[in-house]
């Protein structure tokens, strides 16, 4: 074995040392811990250019709860029972309320008798993008159970909900919601 293999050994260990330093420096520079997961295609993808805010664990947990319940309520209704939709007025922006009313009106006209839809979001699929201090984009996957008409079997499928949430007076208000099947 050549007498200079020791040289090559000492060079490899130096390179590993440099990699370690690199990694340490990188972690300390604030890179997102998680990447936006299943976001809808409509979700703006401009976060790559700006450094995102990072939620604390409590904030993230709270936001998860908020998004989960909102998605569940928003996507749970039945024929002539849109109370969950109407009950979310306190958590919607004015624009979102109008969109909701439009959805309700559309549902009133389109849903058949006996139609019902129940949604259960999975908070483990929660991801967010926090591009600005008062706006956050959240994605979550949910399980939907749909009965198209009375007497028919329910259909189950997954949906992806992307919510654009704004902060107003210490409260989250949904400014927009996109649900993709």
């Amino acid at each position, binding site marked *: 074995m050549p007498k200079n293999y020791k040289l090559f050994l000492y060079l490899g260990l130096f390179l590993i040392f440099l990699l370690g330093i690199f990694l340490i420096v990188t972690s300390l520079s604030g890179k997102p811990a998680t990447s936006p997961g299943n976001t809808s295609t409509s979700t703006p993808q401009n976060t790559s250019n700006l450094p995102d805010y990072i939620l604390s664990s409590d904030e993230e947990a709270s936001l998860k709860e*908020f998004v989960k319940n909102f998605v569940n309520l928003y996507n749970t209704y039945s024929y002539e029972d849109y109370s969950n939709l109407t009950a979310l*007025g306190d*958590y919607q922006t004015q624009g979102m309320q109008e969109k909701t009313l439009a959805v309700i009106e559309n549902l009133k006209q389109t849903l058949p008798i006996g139609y019902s839809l129940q949604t259960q979001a999975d908070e483990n699929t929660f991801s967010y993008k926090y591009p600005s201090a008062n706006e956050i984009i959240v994605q979550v996957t949910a399980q939907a159970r749909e009965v198209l008409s009375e007497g028919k079997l329910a259909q189950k499928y997954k949906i992806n909900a992307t919510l654009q949430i704004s902060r107003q007076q210490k409260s989250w208000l949904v400014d927009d919601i996109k649900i993709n099947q």
Partner: protein
Amino acid sequence: MADTSTQNDTQEEELSPQAGKREDSDTIAIREPFNLGGQDRIVYDISVDKGPKLTFGWKIKPGSVVEISGSGLDIYDQIILWIAGSREEYREIDRSKDGRTISFKVRDNISELYAEGAAAELEFVNSGNAQQNRYLKQQFRIAQETEEQKKQRKVQEESDRIKNAAGIAAEQALNSTLAAAGSVPVSAGANAVASSAAPERARQINEELDDDGENTSDVVTDGSEQEVSGTGVAGIKTQETITQTATGETDNVVSGSINQTVNTEVRSAGQTETNVSGSVESQSQSQNTSRAQINSNVSSSTTTQTQASANVSSSGKVESQTSSGGSRETKISGNVSGGVSGSGKQTVSAKASTNRQVNAQTSATVSGQGGSKGQAGLQTESEVSNEVNAKATQNQSVQNQEQIQEKTKTEAETSAKSEASSGQNQSQPETPQAQKPETGQEKTAKDTQPEQPQQAAPAQAKPTKTQAPGKGNIDGASPKPLDKTAKKSVEPKTGTEQQEQAPVKPPKGLEGVLSKFGANSAALDSKIGFRPTSLDLKNNEKQNSSAKLGGGRTGGRAEDQDTKEKDDNQKEPEVQQGAGAAPLKQPLGDMPQGDQKSEVGDQAGVPPARQPNQVPEEEQPKQDKDSEKEPQEEVEQPKQADDNLPNADQGVRSFSIAEAEKWLNTTVNVYLQTLATMVWAGALPTLGLMILIGAIGGDLIWLLKDRVVKEALKRTPLPKRFGNIKPEDLKININFAIKAQIVLWNLIVALILCFIFVFVFTIFWSICNSPIYYPIRQTSLKSACEYLDSTKLSSSLSNFQSTGSFVASNNTPGSLISTASWTDQINSTAQKWNIDACILRVVIQKESTGKADVIGCDCAADKHPEYCPDKRKTYSSDYQFNWAQCSYGIGLTQWTIYPKGGSGYKAWQDASTPSRQLYSSWYGISDFLNPTTSLDLTAKAFSANLARANGDVASAFAAYVGASNVQAQLVADRMALYNLCKSSATP
């Protein structure tokens, strides 16, 4: 004077209101069951002329003796018989005595005194309680006198006049006899005879009394002095019959006949002491020739059932001084028998001193003036007194008056035959000589007849001319309570007086007795302030003019005065009161005294200025009915009595109707009260059914009382005494007590019906509104319940909609729920009840869409689209409620009011009426529409729920919406909202 007997018969028929239909109708209705203290306790029995006591069907004739007896008489103390407003009869009742029997005698000439149609009224007076007074009314009617009756009456009058003339002649004869005997003072014992045969008679009496108690005495006068004494057995039975006929002659023809028989029986058994003493003094002078024959038989019968022993002693002294200048033949025979029987002890004493001091009940005075001059005075205790006033003048003007026959309890017949002839016979009694003391009689005579003071007085003081002495003695031995009285007086009158008295009809013997009552009544009238009525005045007139009353009773009166001289001295001023009004008041129950007093009163009551032809104006209405000069007062009384009587029949009928109505109403009310008592008694056993029957029956009877009662009267007619009164004429009056009970029954029935209605309604209401009975409600009672609901809902909805408690102005269609406006109220309420504010937000968000005025319909829209066209739709004018079918959430937190109530719920009524109970308080729609109240109640409920769930919000929501599988999604939704609320807060 009308023929009494004839007229009586006619009058009986005529007095009947409807004689043609009712022959035995009463002249005066007496029987009446007066209702006092709720009981009919007074019944009067009437006995007429000793007839049987009848309650009705009796008749009263002029001259009848009417006895009224009854248990109820003790209530009254006076009885007054009014005729034409005049007090015809007056009696006072001694209420302290038992067995009251009131008697009075109807005057013979009563038909002459009153006009036909005059109101007759028998008044029972309770002076202590005028309300108990009773008036028994009838109408006085007089039959039209036929020609035959007129003739008979004239014949009777002529006959009476002849008899009176005979009596005068007899008197003259007696005077002559007495004159022949001279002054005859007599002192006779019981049953003794004031006669010349007194000793012998006394002896006979004694013997008779000793033997068998019967005594007979003859009257003979002589100049001897005798004492008669005897003993007998107590108990008195006296029968007395007096008949008198007399004939006499003077210069002209004076004829008459007097038959007088005195028959006295004294039967004594037991121990009776009777002492009678008397004296007769007679002085007479006769210058003419007179011839008289007097046969007097006096028999009296008195029976007492007392037990007594009798010792009869009599003494008599007869002094007679007679000087006669003519020839005279006199025959006087007397037969006196008396019997005293019984056991016990009775003492009767009589003393006679001259003409005055005699304790006797009868005195007779015969005085004559003319050829003979004499005076005889006799006082006995006989209850039969005769007075003969005979006057013979030279011109042969003869008049006499005879007053006798009183049939009260004694029958007396006196017969006397007298033949007298004298050419010029003038008898002037020398009263001053005979009547030494100035007795009340003398005064009275002077007062009443001042023109002839010596005539009246002797007449009063004269002894009974014939049998009076013997009879008087015997009667005098009879105790007063025997109440056997027959008095007779004959007074000689001067020619002048005779002429003055000539126009006056000589009264019959009965009238003399009747007149007692009239005078007595007049005296009472005067005493109590009544003005003398025409009747009284007529009485007075007759007293004055014919001495019928005064002279007729002077014998007895003088005796009475003598007997009671000491006692009655104080009464003399009363006696001498105004004309026609002797102020004597006698108790009804003491007739003998009354008679005596009345006599005195009569004597005193003779108005001196009254002349027979000078009829006072007050009298004219009675004498001349058509006279326009009738004093108005005199006319008014009968008018007042007949004011409402267009005619006589109607007057009687009106009275009968009134009485019948009274009787009928009393009977009806008593009967109804009995029924009422039965109703009350049967109320409980019949569970009030009797009350219902009583109310219905009472109403019918009340409303149809006339028809019902009169229908009953058709089956059970009125008593006969009410005549032919038609039921239609009677007015039925149900008394207040009966009416009050009927009203009470009606009230009770109405109350019971109200209770029944409420009870039934409550049952129906409960069935219709209770979930328990929901199946029943939906089946058998569906119609009824819907009817009730519709009635209730229509009014409730109208009421609710009219309240305007909330409007739809705040409702913005399409807006979402926002609790932002309630943030402060939510936070304060949550803090108050220590709960999470998000709970209240969730409730609001899920229940009310965040609007306080929302009324949510809980009916399933698919089942009742007509009721809930849009759930959660707020109220609007086109919102149709159906509170009976749907539940409605009210207000901010949607507190629900259920359609049919239930536990803690009430059925919908109206907007403000509480319909739901929460935590022991009732709330209505208005309350739930208040957001503060609504939130507060919600917070309170969740506070309780959290407490029970140990703070588990999901459990609290589950309790709030109902912990069932159906509600699980509702709970999940609320929990999602709750978590959303909780997580919406930003860091």
